[in-house]
Each structure stands twice: as structure tokens, then as C-alpha cells.
């Protein structure tokens, strides 16, 4: 029987260790408990999420699929309350008991809250996980005054993120130097100047005594009695290993859970990894050491005991764009035998300091210019003898181009410090698997998925090695809104932006253009299911007057004729309207509808009223129509009721907007008379079943639709269609037709996310569709109740010439 491995903690260290364990042996039955409700994400990039540079989706490291594919039982939002090391079980807070053979503690750490009066007040935040980040994003508003307590890596990144969100930020630091654990006072001085240059205020040597305000934070008071006011306070004063569980289980615990070089704790079946661990008196809070530990532990835990963990060289890089700071090793100068090599240029705001001992590098600080950090870290880790290079320590010989630079690196050179991936293994993987893009490289080697600082190097390697290297273009919406659409969708939701103008004011130049405005209008509609503040000025003329503008500035009118089935009365009314308003052309469209062409804008409301039919939405990026054949009603070959099913399909989705126009077809037999297999969504009736097909096209491009699913009844077919319909609405980029969307994701992926998605996910799709549909209405009702007095009316000037 398989051994049971229980992992407490679903963070980077624990999951990276599990990845390594899977490499050694698949024999474990693995259960992972995480107290956060998210899958494993890259915690280092939270500051990028706060700064709006990345969306929450983009920092995911292991998707649900990964857990599923590796048969890992994942329990999220569950905290483990106790460990019984005798009975070998863990008990969660909800009382469930889970037995284990081996237990892996990867409980991480928590924010250190200094003894400050009033930290429980509203408006006081920590910045540790995705929920904290979301909460901060919710609160951060233009003009809000924010105080960040703590001038370390995390504090500074949080400060910059809040500032980008429009806050007026002050960093308050207890010590006299920013990032004093990574920088000396000179380096800290340069850093302070840079932060101030960006507009972040910095107060040093301030000991915060209390948070002011009754129940809500209104500012802080320092020990010296001075006060500053604020709307929100973020505490980023360091971290504290989470060791309560280990201590209660009887393990040896100092500051962290004590482990030896094999990463074993004091108990034979319990192991620990990550920020909760103490190795040789050191607790690490940076990612690279944790991943090194994970590798060693994976060997130990799977019975391949041998590799030793011998401590890590601490290295840190500040991830603030435009503020380059790197520090590694021990930078104390006043130790006998240490040589200090220093360079400083105040005009360039550049500072470099190397500490050498016995001709090898032991510490480095770089401020303002960090492009050489990789070389220094390599020297540090490998204890390279630098006698030969003594003259070029700070200024290496210039190399012709970056390609050459990569070529000069040895195969053993570690490119990705976080995941310990060497140049040799990257080059081999690129060659063996024929990789061409950075994302493929990330997936195969994990390189550059940690802190991301080696992304450029990986890119250069790809360029040098892969013959068909493809630069990945990140398609931003347009020049004025430089974000990708998934990013924007995330921003709209997380920041609760409820109008196009709000997005433009905060994330653009306030004006927008003909590309982003309609796209943002659609995003608003999707995010809030129609319950938002619709800005007509951001929409194309067709959507302002619910008719299709023609080349001469007149409009066309297409009433809804569901399933293409009409009546003599309806046809008579249409004929009367055409005559009464001198419609220039009456035409049967390719979609089994009737088009009245050449109508003046001011006639539109009257025509709609006379027609007494709903809008066919022929003018918008929305649900167009359902084309049908006569099916079992009349056709001697028909095996399914195409007419009734088609009309019902049209009724369920009509009046809704979609990323691009959406055309549908229903046929009562596989002869396909209504061309369902080249529609965005098609239902193909067969003997005893319905095929649901999606992503078909017969326009500029011809594409046969992919089969989504085959089901027995028409109702089931409509249900499956609804899932796809809503999934497309929520996830396609604006102006992306279903055929591009399905092709981009692959039909397998689409199936996984719709008809084979977990029940809760399906219900979510249905629920949001239901909500949208509930708020939608026939656009032509606006003819009786216009949005604006001059929406359809021609303005008559108050004065004119006679």
C-alpha cells in the first residue's frame, strides 16, 4: 500500500518540495492542507499584484490541474489545529482527522506585529498573502494617505505598490538605514534618495508607539510624541516562523523548527521545510534557500537520503521598477582580513561594494546598477578565486552583446537562483524538447518562475540556442490602457471599478480611444452582469441608437424573428413600415431575417413602435440569431425538433452582449441545412441525441466547429450550450470570435472549464448568466424612454438664417 504523506502548508516551499518528491517517487498518497483559499502562487510577486503589474491569475504557480494530474488531494481554506505524533494523525480546525505515515510541515511564517497600541483597529493591514493584497487594493484609493511601518524589502515594495495605486505614502522605519539587513548606511542612503525621488516619503529612526483613531486608524504616534495622520496603515516589520504546531507536537523548536543537514526534525516521521525551519541557527525568509531545502528534503523523505543542506548565501533583490538594489552575503567591513572594494557616483546614484576575504567574494551590495548581480552571486556561491580578476572586479571587460555574455557562462553556472537551474540544463532542455518560447521554458524547467530576476538571461539563452525563438508579445488593450485584457478584468473586479471613465481616469490618461472604450464597456457589463453605470459615450454609435450605421450615415433595422419563423401579420407590419418610412431596401439576410435599409436616425423609435417586434441585435457585439431548418415539423428526414429548440435557444440568450457577434444554428439532422457546424454555436440533431458544436466559422475564415459534447435531450444540449456561452463571454478577449477563442485554448481546455468543470464552477457560470439575463432587456424599448432627450432627435438650432 502507498505511504500517506500529509503536507501542512500550500505555499511555495511546501509545494516545491512536493514537486521534487514526485520526481523521486510517485508512490506517496499525498494530501496537502492550505489555510489560504488559493492554489500555490508566487508570493514574491504579490508586490507586483499590488502595483497592478500582474493579476492574481498570473502569479499562480500550480494550477488545480497540476494537483489533479498528480493525484494530490488538496484541501484549501483548512487550518491544521494539532498533530498527534504517536497516533500519527493531524486534526484540522473543522475536526477532521487525517492519518499520515510521513508528515511535512511547511507552515511558513506570519507577519511580525511589533508592540504597537491599537493594531487591531480598522484600516491597519499586513501584507503577507493574496487576501491581504486584495484587501489593500480595495482600500487603496487616489489621494488616500498611507503609512507603511517597516523599511525592509517588503515594506518598500508595499509602499511603492500603494503609491502606484494613487496613495500618498510614508515609510516609517525603526532603524537609521532602509533595508539595514541587506545594506550598509551608504547604500541605504542612496536607496532612500531613490524612494523619495519616486515620491515616497521616508522617516528613519522612528519608533511607532500607537495607531491613532477610535475604531478606525487615523494616523500613528511615535515614541517621541510626534504624530502623522493617515487613512490606512500597513505593518511590514518582518516575519515570524509559524512553529506552534511543531511545538505542540513535541518537536525541538527554537525560533524555527530545528532541522539537521538532511532536513530531519527531532521526530523521525516529521519533516519541515521553508520559512518555518531553523537550520544551524538561521531562519531563512527568501525563496532560494527554501527551494534548496526542498530538494534535500525530497531526497531524505523518499528514502534517497544523501544530499545535504549546508545553509544558503542570503541574497535579495528589491523588485521596484527603477530602484535597483541587490545584496548578497556578509557585507560587514570591520572584520580583520576583509578587503572592501567600493565605487560610488552620486550623480549616477550608483553604489557598489564588494567584500573580499582570502581572495574570494563574501559579500556584495549594489545600488542603482545591478546588471552584474548574477556574476557576483556566482562568485559568492562557488567561492571563486578572484586573484586573476582583481583589476576588473567592479568593471568587467565590456562584452560585445548579450549573446556573447551568455556564451561565456559555464554550463554549471546557475541561471535561476531560486530554482537552482543551471545554464547547462536550460540549454539541454531547449534542445531536447525544441522549446521556442519563454513560457515553455518556464513550464519545463521552472527557471525564472521565482523572483523573475533571471528572465532576461533565460530570454538571451533562448535567443542563442533556439533557432525559432519567438518573442512573446504581451497584447495590451491599446496604447492608452497598457494592460492585457485578463489583467483589466482582474483590475475591474478587484478594484470595483464601475464605469469606463473610472478605469480611464485611474489606469490611463483619462481620455481613452475608440479601441479601449468599447472593450472596457464590455468588460464592465461582464464584471457586473449589467449592474453597472453604463456610459453610452464609450460605445460605438450602433450601441447608442440600437441600429447598424450604413455607409451613407443612415441605419438599418433588423427585428428579431426567432429561429427565422415569422407570420403573415408580422410580415404585413414589416411591409407597412417599409412603405410608411420610405425604406430604401427590404432584404432577406443570410441569417433568415429581414433587413430594412436606409433609415434615418430620427425615424428609428417610430419604426420600432410600428413594428412591435423586439430588436434583433444585428448591430452589436452580441447574440445575433439562431438559424434553423424545419426539422421534425415538416422535413421528411428530420429526426429532432430544430424549430422549437432553435427558438428556445434564441430566447435564452437574446439581448445579451458577447465579446464579438455570436451566431447560432440548430439543425434537425446531420444534413446540416442551416449550417450549424459553421456557426459560433451549433446544435446538430441526430437519431436519439444532440451534438453541441462550438467555434465554427464561415466568414473571412472557414472553420468546422468542434464537438463540445453529445447529449440525449434538447434541454441537456441547451444546458451545455449555456456553459460554453457564459465561459466565452467571461474569458474571451474583446473582438475575439469563438473560433479564435476555441482555437487559442483548445477544445479540451474548453471542455474542462465548462461541461467537465467542477459542479461549483458550472453553477457559478449559470448563476452569472442568469443574473445577466435577468438584467438584460430589449434595447428597442428605449424608443419609448430614451436615455437622453436628443438620443434620436435631430437638434433644431435656436437661430438660423432665413
Amino acid at each position: 500500500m502507498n505511504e500517506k504523506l500529509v503536507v501542512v502548508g500550500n505555499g511555495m516551499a511546501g509545494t516545491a518540495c512536493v514537486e521534487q518528491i514526485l520526481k523521486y517517487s510517485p508512490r506517496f498518497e499525498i494530501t496537502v492542507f492550505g489555510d489560504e483559499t488559493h492554489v500555490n502562487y508566487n508570493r514574491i510577486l504579490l508586490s507586483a499584484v499590488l502595483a497592478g503589474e500582474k493579476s492574481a491569475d498570473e502569479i499562480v504557480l500550480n494550477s488545480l490541474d497540476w494537483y489533479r494530474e498528480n493525484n494530490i488531494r488538496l484541501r484549501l481554506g483548512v487550518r491544521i489545529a494539532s498533530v498527534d505524533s504517536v497516533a500519527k494523525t493531524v486534526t484540522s480546525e473543522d475536526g477532521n482527522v487525517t492519518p499520515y505515515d510521513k508528515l511535512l510541515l511547511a507552515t511558513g511564517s506570519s507577519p511580525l506585529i511589533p508592540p504597537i497600541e491599537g493594531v487591531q483597529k480598522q484600516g491597519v493591514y499586513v501584507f503577507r498573502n493574496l487576501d491581504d493584497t486584495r484587501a489593500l487594493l480595495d482600500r487603496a484609493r487616489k489621494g488616500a494617505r498611507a503609512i507603511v511601518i517597516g523599511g525592509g524589502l517588503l515594506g518598500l515594495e508595499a509602499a511603492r505598490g500603494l503609491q502606484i495605486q494613487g496613495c500618498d505614502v510614508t515609510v516609517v522605519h525603526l532603524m537609521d538605514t532602509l533595508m539595514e539587513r541587506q545594506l550598509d548606511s551608504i547604500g541605504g542612503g542612496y536607496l532612500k534618495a531613490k524612494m523619495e525621488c519616486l515620491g515616497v516619503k521616508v522617516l528613519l529612526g522612528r519608533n511607532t508607539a500607537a495607531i491613532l483613531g477610535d475604531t478606525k486608524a487615523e494616523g500613528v504616534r511615535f515614541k517621541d510624541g510626534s504624530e502623522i495622520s493617515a487613512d490606512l496603515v500597513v505593518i511590514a516589520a518582518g516575519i515570524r516562523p509559524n512553529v506552534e504546531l511543531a511545538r505542540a507536537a513535541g518537536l525541538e523548536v527554537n525560533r524555527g523548527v530545528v532541522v539537521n543537514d538532511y532536513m530531519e526534525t527531532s521526530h523521525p516521521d516529521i519533516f519541515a521545510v521553508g520559512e518555518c525551519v531553523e537550520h544551524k541557527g538561521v531562519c531563512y525568509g527568501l525563496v532560494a534557500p527554501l527551494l534548496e531545502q526542498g530538494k534535500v528534503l525530497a531526497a531524505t523523505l523518499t528514502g534517497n537520503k544523501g544530499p545535504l543542506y549546508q545553509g544558503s548565501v542570503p541574497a535579495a533583490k528589491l523588485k521596484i521598477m527603477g530602484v535597483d538594489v541587490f545584496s548578497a552575503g556578509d557585507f560587514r567591513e570591520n572584520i580583520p582580513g576583509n578587503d572592501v572594494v567600493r565605487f560610488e557616483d552620486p550623480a549616477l546614484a550608483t553604489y557598489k561594494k564588494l567584500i573580499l576575504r582570502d581572495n574570494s567574494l563574501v559579500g556584495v551590495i549594489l545600488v542603482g546598477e545591478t546588471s552584474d548581480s548574477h556574476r557576483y552571486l556566482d562568485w559568492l556561491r562557488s567561492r571563486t578565486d578572484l586573484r586573476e580578476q582583481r583589476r576588473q572586479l567592479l568593471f568587467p571587460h565590456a562584452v560585445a552583446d548579450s549573446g556573447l555574455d551568455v556564451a561565456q557562462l559555464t554550463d554549471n553556472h546557475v541561471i535561476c537562483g531560486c530554482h537552482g537551474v543551471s545554464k547547462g540544463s536550460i540549454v539541454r532542455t531547449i534542445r531536447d524538447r525544441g522549446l521556442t518560447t519563454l513560457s515553455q521554458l518556464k513550464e519545463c524547467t521552472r527557471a525564472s518562475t521565482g523572483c523573475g530576476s533571471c528572465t532576461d538571461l533565460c530570454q538571451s539563452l533562448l535567443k542563442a540556442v533556439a533557432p525559432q525563438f519567438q518573442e512573446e508579445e504581451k497584447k495590451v488593450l491599446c496604447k492608452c490602457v497598457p494592460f492585457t485584457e485578463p489583467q483589466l478584468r482582474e483590475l475591474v473586479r478587484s478594484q470595483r471599478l464601475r464605469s469606463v471613465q473610472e478605469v480611464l481616469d485611474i489606469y490611463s490618461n483619462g481620455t481613452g480611444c475608440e479601441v479601449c472604450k468599447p472593450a472596457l464597456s464590455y468588460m464592465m457589463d461582464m464584471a457586473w452582469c449589467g449592474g453597472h453605470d453604463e456610459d453610452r459615450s464609450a460605445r460605438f454609435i450602433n450601441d447608442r441608437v440600437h441600429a447598424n450605421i450604413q455607409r451613407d450615415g443612415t441605419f438599418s433595422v433588423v427585428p428579431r424573428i426567432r429561429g427565422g419563423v415569422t407570420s403573415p401579420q408580422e410580415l404585413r407590419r414589416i411591409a407597412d413600415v417599409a412603405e410608411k418610412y420610405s425604406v430604401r431596401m427590404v432584404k432577406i439576410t443570410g441569417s433568415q431575417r429581414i433587413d430594412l435599409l436606409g433609415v434615418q436616425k430620427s425615424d428609428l423609435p417610430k419604426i420600432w413602435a410600428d413594428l412591435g417586434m423586439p430588436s434583433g441585435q444585428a448591430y452589436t457585439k452580441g447574440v445575433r440569431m439562431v438559424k434553423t431548418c424545419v426539422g421534425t415539423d415538416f422535413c421528411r428526414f428530420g429526426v429532432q425538433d430544430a424549430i422549437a429548440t432553435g427558438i428556445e435557444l434564441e430566447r435564452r440568450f437574446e439581448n445579451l452582449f458577447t465579446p464579438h457577434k455570436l451566431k447560432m444554428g440548430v439543425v434537425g439532422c446531420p444534413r446540416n441545412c442551416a449550417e450549424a457546424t459553421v456557426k459560433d454555436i451549433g446544435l446538430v440533431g441526430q437519431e436519439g441525441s444532440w451534438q453541441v458544436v462550438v467555434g465554427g466559422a464561415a466568414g473571412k475564415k472557414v472553420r468546422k466547429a468542434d464537438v463540445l459534447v453529445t447529449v440525449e435531450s434538447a434541454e441537456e444540449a441547451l444546458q451545455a450550450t449555456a456553459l460554453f456561452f457564459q465561459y466565452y463571454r467571461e474569458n474571451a478577449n474583446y473582438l475575439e470570435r469563438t473560433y479564435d477563442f476555441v482555437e487559442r485554448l483548445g477544445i479540451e481546455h474548453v471542455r474542462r472549464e465548462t461541461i467537465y468543470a467542477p459542479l461549483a464552477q458550472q453553477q457559478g457560470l449559470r448563476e452569472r448568466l442568469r443574473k445577466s439575463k435577468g438584467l438584460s432587456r430589449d434595447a428597442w424599448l428605449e424608443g419609448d424612454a430614451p436615455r437622453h432627450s436628443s438620443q434620436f432627435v435631430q437638434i433644431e438650432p435656436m437661430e438660423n438664417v432665413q
Partner: protein
Amino acid sequence: MTVVENRWFRVTPCANIPIREGRVVKIAQWQIAIFNLGESFLAVENGCPHRGGPLADGIVSGTAVVCPLHAWKFDLLTGSAVNHPDSNACLKTFPTRVEQGIICVELPATTESQETASPVCEHRDLPLRWVQRKPLASPPAEIYEL
């Protein structure tokens, strides 16, 4: 239907043009598109020099408008075609001001050629019509009067 000398015309109350939208009015022989930009109103001739598209129906982008037919973009202050700089296409612009909540537009005196030439595109396949006009060095002061 001629304007004898340059003169201001009272057009319509400000409230009749929604913010960031345009509306067309016919005065004398002109079809004029008036846009509400929030802090000011700007007026240009309505017909796009490219294919006669109704600019009043376009999406406003800052102080520019984008023609709904083929996305030619015009600066409403100068009349120049922003995304077709080589075309020399230029819209006629009209000074505007607001008096007691009423938008006013100044029209030039009608010249003979204007009287004869139809300034508005009423038909399909109208031949290309370029209106040459030197862009203003600075926008007229009236535009900012409010």
C-alpha cells in the same frame, strides 16, 4: 440660406448634448457637429473628408473624434486628421462659446463657392472631398470661454 457676414448663432442648451458625445445641427448650408467635452464645446463640420461619415456619431477620444465609418481620427481643435497625416485632409472648425447655458457657434460669411458646392454627403459613393485648411497655431480663445 446664406450668412451675410461672420456672425454668432445661438444653437441649443448645453444639456442637449451629453458629455463626450456629439450632435449634428443644420445651420445655413452647414452640417455642424458639436461635441461636449466636459469643460468646453467644440464644433466642426459633420462630414468626414474621407467618405462623408457622420462625425457627430463618432467616439470622442480626448479632444479628438473617431469617424464611425472607417475610424479616421480628427483633432477637434485644429481639424487635422490625426491618424492620416499624409492625407492633408482637414475639417473646418467653428469657434464656439457658451452664453447663459446656450451653445453658440460662429459661422463665416457665405462665399460663392460654398453656396454652389454641397458641403454634405447625401449620397453613396460620393467622390472624395478634401477641405484644405491651415491648422490653427493656437486654438481660438472662445473655445475656452465658459
